[in-house]
């Protein structure tokens, strides 16, 4: 039965993607992208990837949409150029699609337990997580311990992207003067968004903290929690206006969060070396190696959450505080 539901969702996904390409109103296209991400998250959930679904829902449907919208307010809402070389492009991409579809017949069927991808390290991870780390969520264990180097690299990429956006958007025409434009007042004069939004903000933060600290036992972890807490603060900024949000959370504090989280993650690795282990080998953090692993995972997940939250909020404020030309 579930397979028909999956087929239905995947078909909707294709329809949404075509609608995104066809519409000329960029505002509509961005809102459709939000729906696209939500459908994608539902698909991930059907395919047993609960952690990924949570991430896609928080980031794809939440943060990405807001960042696109704030970029739209600085550029243009309508697409003006004609599609160039339409039929040639359609020809090229159709051939690509046919080649890709032909290649899929060599792939194992969906859910085949004998597929090559399930034969290599994955069974080892599933077998050894209860022995070596003893936390229920294998995804968190692989993310923060077995593949800790990889995750450290990703955290630094997020940090570097945040620095890049700040470099690009703090120069040139300058930060917006602190005047009372309609944008800086937020939705303060709209009663219903204000009341409902104010009620929601603390609960979103609470849920983010739950996802952060429950990440070892259920779906969740630093990446998802950082994004969820960032959406709560973005909602606060949309309701109360840019100035009130920056008064509650100054730019320097946000950038400090992005730096501190990445530093915390790196420092755990250095502490492991100082205690006689390898870089990011958490077993030496406690006399019992299993508890050492658990301590290391909790600390680096906190580092990931702080960096992701700080970096996403810094990016959001970099866009919203820039003065538009029109």
């Amino acid at each position, binding site marked *: 039965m579930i397979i028909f539901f999956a087929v239905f969702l995947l078909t909707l996904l294709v329809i949404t993607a075509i609608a995104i390409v066809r519409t000329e109103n960029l505002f509509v296209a961005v809102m459709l992208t939000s729906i696209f991400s939500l459908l994608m998250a539902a698909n991930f959930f059907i395919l047993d*990837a609960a952690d990924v679904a949570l991430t896609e829902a928080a980031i*794809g449907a939440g943060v990405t949409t807001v*960042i*696109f919208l704030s970029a739209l307010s600085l550029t243009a809402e309508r697409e003006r150029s004609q599609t160039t070389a339409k039929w040639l492009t*359609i020809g090229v991409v159709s051939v690509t699609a046919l080649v890709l579809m032909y290649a899929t017949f060599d792939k194992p069927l969906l859910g085949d337990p004998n597929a090559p991808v399930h034969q290599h390290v994955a069974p080892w991870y599933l077998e050894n997580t209860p022995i070596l780390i003893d936390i229920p969520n294998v995804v968190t264990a692989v993310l923060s311990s077995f593949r800790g180097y990889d*995750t450290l690299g990703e955290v630094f990429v997020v940090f570097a*992207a945040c620095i890049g956006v700040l470099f690009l958007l703090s120069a040139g025409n300058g930060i917006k003067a602190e005047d009372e434009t309609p944008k800086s007042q937020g939705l303060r004069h709209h009663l219903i968004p204000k009341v409902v939004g104010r009620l929601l903000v603390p609960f979103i933060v609470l849920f983010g903290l739950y996802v952060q600290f429950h990440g070892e036992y259920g779906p969740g972890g630093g990446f998802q929690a950082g994004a969820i807490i960032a959406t709560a603060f973005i909602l606060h900024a949309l309701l109360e206006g840019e100035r009130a949000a920056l008064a509650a959370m100054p730019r320097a504090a946000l950038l400090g969060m992005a730096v501190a989280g990445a530093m915390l993650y790196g420092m755990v690795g250095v502490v492991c070396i100082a205690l006689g282990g390898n870089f990011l080998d958490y077993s030496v953090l406690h006399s019992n190696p299993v508890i050492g692993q658990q301590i290391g995972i909790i600390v680096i997940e906190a580092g990931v959450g702080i960096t992701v939250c700080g970096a996403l909020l810094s990016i959001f404020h970099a866009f919203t505080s820039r003065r538009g030309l029109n």
Partner: protein
Amino acid sequence: MELLGYYNYWVFAILLVIGLYTVIAKGNLIKKLLGLSIFQSAVFLMYITMNKVEGGTAPIILKGATDQIFSNPLPQVLILTAIVVGVSTTAVGLAIVVRIKETYGSIEEHQIFEADQTP
């Protein structure tokens, strides 16, 4: 029924080329970035499709329960981090688009080329 096992991969192929089409044929820079994110989501879908095991469940181990089948945790870890990195890199792209708009007064490709041709 057998063919439905390939349906996910076909949707992956179609979404991939929809993204590719947008990047090639559309002149608007924000539209191109939307196309890139569709392209990226298609790759995510392919990875997550590979992680599914028939009769399996999300890889969260219940203490005491035996004979559980789990889906593959590894593609999930790779894609989880890729989603977060994806939004950060998209933001860098959007920041560049905003600066292009401020410099050229347009985000349409042909107008930017024309502005570059006239000295």
